[in-house]
């Protein structure tokens, strides 16, 4: 895959395997993932539980390192950064939003203090912290709940507060791991709406990991991840800045890996009765390649 110069996130053949200490069994969470996400886009990584979504997002956030492969985010080669370099990367480049509010917020601090704390780490001045914290909390609709601690916020409010914390240090990329996993439908749509506004207004690159298919229609690109590899992608053909998400035209594309393998979506397989074999038919006149089912011989 060619590295796009416009891509803010570039993954090339990233693998990740774990070893269970008690059973000594190794398992591979990611198997050669290639991914390019353009700057300013809103991308979703969708897949069932255990597909490797969170692992992928944690690698993008610099929280774990890949076993093999290269990860370049905003020109930072994460696979070779260590220690405080990663800390600085997380501080300046990414904002992270977890599924569970307890992982986003310090429970004994109020909403305002949580947002300010993130900026204290990044050495913002007191004036800047006060101003920005107020602004962000108002932006996410918590202007009247700034002094409340986590215990006194509802689930949606806590998640919005987490969003404000993630945006506190003006990151270039917002990474969200199942941000609506514990929320009801209405609140989910609110969060999605916030994310869209952030993407549209601030030009922030947003990458959301989710199992919620509703995100598919809300993003520029949505990658399907299955068994640790990218199975397919749906992308918006329209400029979603100009029209509504729901009206955007989308196409489904197959992802070809370095070995030339591509995954045919299940619904197409069923529709066209593609069994074990396919054959390739070249149309040199039109310069197209057709894939058709092939019979057993």
């Amino acid at each position: 895959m060619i590295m796009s110069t416009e891509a803010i996130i570039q993954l090339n053949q990233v693998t990740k395997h774990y070893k269970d200490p008690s059973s000594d069994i190794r398992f591979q969470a990611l198997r050669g993932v290639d991914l390019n996400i353009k700057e300013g886009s809103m991308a979703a990584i969708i897949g069932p539980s255990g597909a490797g979504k969170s692992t992928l997002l944690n690698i993008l956030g610099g929280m774990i390192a890949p076993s093999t492969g290269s990860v370049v985010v905003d020109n930072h080669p994460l696979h070779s950064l260590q220690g405080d370099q990663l800390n600085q990367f997380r501080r300046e480049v990414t904002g992270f939003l977890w599924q569970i509010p307890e992982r986003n917020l310090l429970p004994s601090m109020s909403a305002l203090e949580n947002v300010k704390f993130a900026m204290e780490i990044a050495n913002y001045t007191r004036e800047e912290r006060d101003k920005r914290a107020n602004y962000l909390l108002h932006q996410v609709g918590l202007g009247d709940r700034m002094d409340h601690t986590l215990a006194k916020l509802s689930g949606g409010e806590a998640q919005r507060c987490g969003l404000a914390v993630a945006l506190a240090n003006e990151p270039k990329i917002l990474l969200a791991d199942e941000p609506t996993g514990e929320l009801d439908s209405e609140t989910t749509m609110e969060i999605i709406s916030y994310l869209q506004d952030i993407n549209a207004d601030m030009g922030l690159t947003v990458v959301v990991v989710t199992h919620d298919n509703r995100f598919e229609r809300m993003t520029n690109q949505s990658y399907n991840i299955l068994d640790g590899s990218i199975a397919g992608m749906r992308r918006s053909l329209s400029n979603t800045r100009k029209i509504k998400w729901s009206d955007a035209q989308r196409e489904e594309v197959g992802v070809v890996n370095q070995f030339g393998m591509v995954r045919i979506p299940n619904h197409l397989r069923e529709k066209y009765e593609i069994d074990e074999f396919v054959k390739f038919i070249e149309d040199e006149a039109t310069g197209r390649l057709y894939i058709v089912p092939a019979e057993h011989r």
Partner: protein
Amino acid sequence: MCNNSEQWLNRCTLVVNYNMSNNTGYNRQNGNNQPKPWSLRLFILGINLILLFLILDTPLLQRIGLILIGISLVLGCISYIKHRFNGNTTTNDSVRDIFPLVRKYLKVNRRFLLASTLGLIIAIMVISQIYVVSESTTGNIYSEIFQNGVTPFTEISQIGDYPGSDVTNLHMNRNAIEMKYNDTLQEYGIRSMGMNEFSRYYFSSHSTDWNPQTGAGRGLRMRNEIINKQEFQLLQQFPTFPNLDYSHNLTLLVLDSYRIEEYNFTVVDQISENHSLQVTLEYNNTVIDIPVENFWLLTNDDWSYANDHDMRYLMNRYEGTTIIPNKSIATVFNVSGIVPSQYLMRGYIDYSSLVNQNPTQILQIITNMRNDLYTYLDRQNFNIRSIDISSQVSQRLQQAESQLQSIKFLLTILSVPMMILALYLVYFSLNLVEIRKQKQVGVMKVRGVSTTQLRMMLGAEAVFASIIATAIGMALSLPWSYYIINKSGIFASNSSIFLPKNWYWKMPIIGLILTMDLNIWSILSISETKIEESEAAEETKEPFWKRFYLDVLATIIGAGILLTMKFVNFDRTVDAFFTYQIGPIALLLFIFGLPLFVSRYYSTFLTILSDFLWKRTGNLVALATRNMRKNKFSASKLAVLLMIGMMFSFVAISVPNSLKSWNQDRAHYEVGSDFAITGLDSTNSTHFEPLTNNTDITAITSIKRITVTQTMLGPRERPYNNIIYIGINSSTYRQAAYWDASFSTTSLQRLMDALQQGKVLVQSDALDVLDVKVGEDILLPINRTDSAVHNVGGSFKYWPRSLDHLYRIATWVSDVIVILPMDVFNTDYSIYNVSTVTALARTSNNVNQTAVLEQLKEDYRELGGQTLSFGISSAQEFLESYQVTDQNRLMFTIFDTLLLVTAITSVIGVGYFSFITLSERKREIGVFRAVGMVSTQIFVLLVIEALVLALSSIILGDLAGIFVTDSYFMLIGSDVGQIPPLRLRFNARFTFLYSLAILLLSIISAAIPARITAKQQTGSILRAE
């Protein structure tokens, strides 16, 4: 398409090549936990040596510690330079920017701060009390030596030697002097003449010249005394002793006027024009003028016949002084050929400026002065081998110094258990919160907090805790020290607290070092926390002792050796080897191994218990033990804390009780019964009347004892010091004499039966070396030429009133003890004409022993009259004579405080554990509420958890305490030690009550957070974390 494929393939190749050339994607199999740098390890080791130096005052530790710190700093600098040279950038976190973060962190983690603080307060308190009690003891002893309120000056007096008989004479004379002239002396403000010892020079019979080379008759003796300020001020007017560094050192010479007359001296004293004194001596027509600063006081050596006129004349003449200085020793000896007799010389040191210095320093000054004097005298060609410069003050100070050293050693050793408890409490608390802190740190790391920022926050927390703990610990140590000093009764009256100057800076440094020790690895570990816990879990390594089961080995080996020593009989040599060489190591192995062993297996115990209860009952208790498995590792550590505390407490309870019982055993062993009366004539029945007539006496028996010395005995004909024969009356002995089951493996009744059959009883150790067994015949010497054959009817280890010393020697049997029936004794051993017997009398319980003793004394005094005297001893008197020493009193007092410290650490440990763990179990509690449990049931459930934990730990601690104490007594009171041996005797009632108190306190401290948790509303719990 082919082109595209080719291009695609080419690009893939490029990508592959790119990856291979830039293959920095690394395998995270083993994680990247940073190994702890050696510079840091050396630094920690160095500061710990400094800590030991501050506590133990050993300069070598300080030197080594500073060297290690220096090396670590150098290594650290090299490492830092290499790190920068390699282009590694560091974050730009400025100290100023970190302050707000630290403040925020401390505010957020107030409850975690408690973990570091409480245990550290106790540890600082314990260490501080060692200092304060030691220094206060020094100060109080110092005050006693120098008599509170009196300015301490010292006088070095009397350079000279003296033969013994003269000393006695002169001492008596001194008393006469003081008695006769006491009022006059006091009138002139002189409290002590210090003329206790006079010296005499003696000459060889053929020479009247003093020969310094041979030193014939020439010796010097110097003595110290304490005099009061007035005397010293008087003496300050006199010229100083030359060639020495002590400006107030003076000499005083006293001549014996009697001798002067004997040798035809004439003393002429005149007042010269400048009102100074001049003394002229004439001897054999030799005239010596002693200059004004070198004049002599004439005294009469036999003061009991002193001439009043002489004394008063002198005192009036010299305006009330009776002392006159001599400038130098040389002058003394210059005139010694003329004045060959007694003289007195004194040297004085003014150390009023040294009042605040400790006895060690004063001792050093006195030692320096003595050394200077020796040097001076040596230069003057005196034979210094015949010179003895002694100092009573220094002797007293040296005694005080030894006393102080033993007190300080005892204090330190006895404080070690309390320090272990306190520091373990801190370690446990920090461990408890470490996991909780890691979650917070995970959140912070997601936001990009740097390692430096994290370490600054965590370090600031530790330092803050250290400051608070040190201040509070130092303050609390003062009343505690006051209690120890006054309760232990080392000093007769109410004693004061003395604070050393260096206490103010030593304790904060100690606090800081302890804090670093306890926190540094935790800080490093937490700051390197991985955001994904799963990665952290896979990279955790067990400590090496756990991997190699060192704890299990230590516990089993230690226990095995001690049990073997207890139940297997070895011969004396092997027994001594085990007792002195192996036993102490085994005990230490057990003491250190057991807590680690419990820590490893307590969680297994909980699992087994919960499975068992769950299958059998399934009730609240079963549920409680089930729930405990969630925090089983923290529970294991808490169990160890409680167990250690109970173990030490058991020792503290049982040692004083055992010592008291042992004193009673010793007293009875020495006397043989409640009373023993010696010198009775067995043929004279009136001698027994005071005993038979006394209604408080319930049983009487008589024994005879002889010692046959330096005989050869046995097949190997080994020489023994003594064979001690004791004849007893087997029909009355059992009722009257003192006996303990440990004295023989055979019962006393059976031993008496054997004696009634005409057999003898032989000490068991002797049987081994005599190569004879019970039931066999033995040839026993009656005297140096005759022997008698007896059948051995039994053996014993100890027999009361048999030995003069209460100690058994390790490697050989020096005394053989044989018990004979009285009629056999009288028949075969009558050659010794032992007609006097000792009567042993036993009283009934609860009798006033003192009253009985007084009655017996009166009766026997009346019986004996002027001609006979009987020896009467009572076990009560012996018991009173075993006075509790200062060290024992101090030990008992510290043991009392150990009980208190155990209670406090137990309460804190259990309370904190409950507080921290319950705050994280809200969801679990919410589920309980959601399924229908009411708050009371939840409260009971939580309390049962604490109860199971505390009860199991207390039982384990008590059992461990029994084993440790019994083993300790076995080692120190074994067959090669004291007779009778020291044994474990614990007060079961008190032990039970104390254990119950600890259990109740632990439950109460757990009940408070349990109550708070149980009362929370279901909704808020389920919504919360």
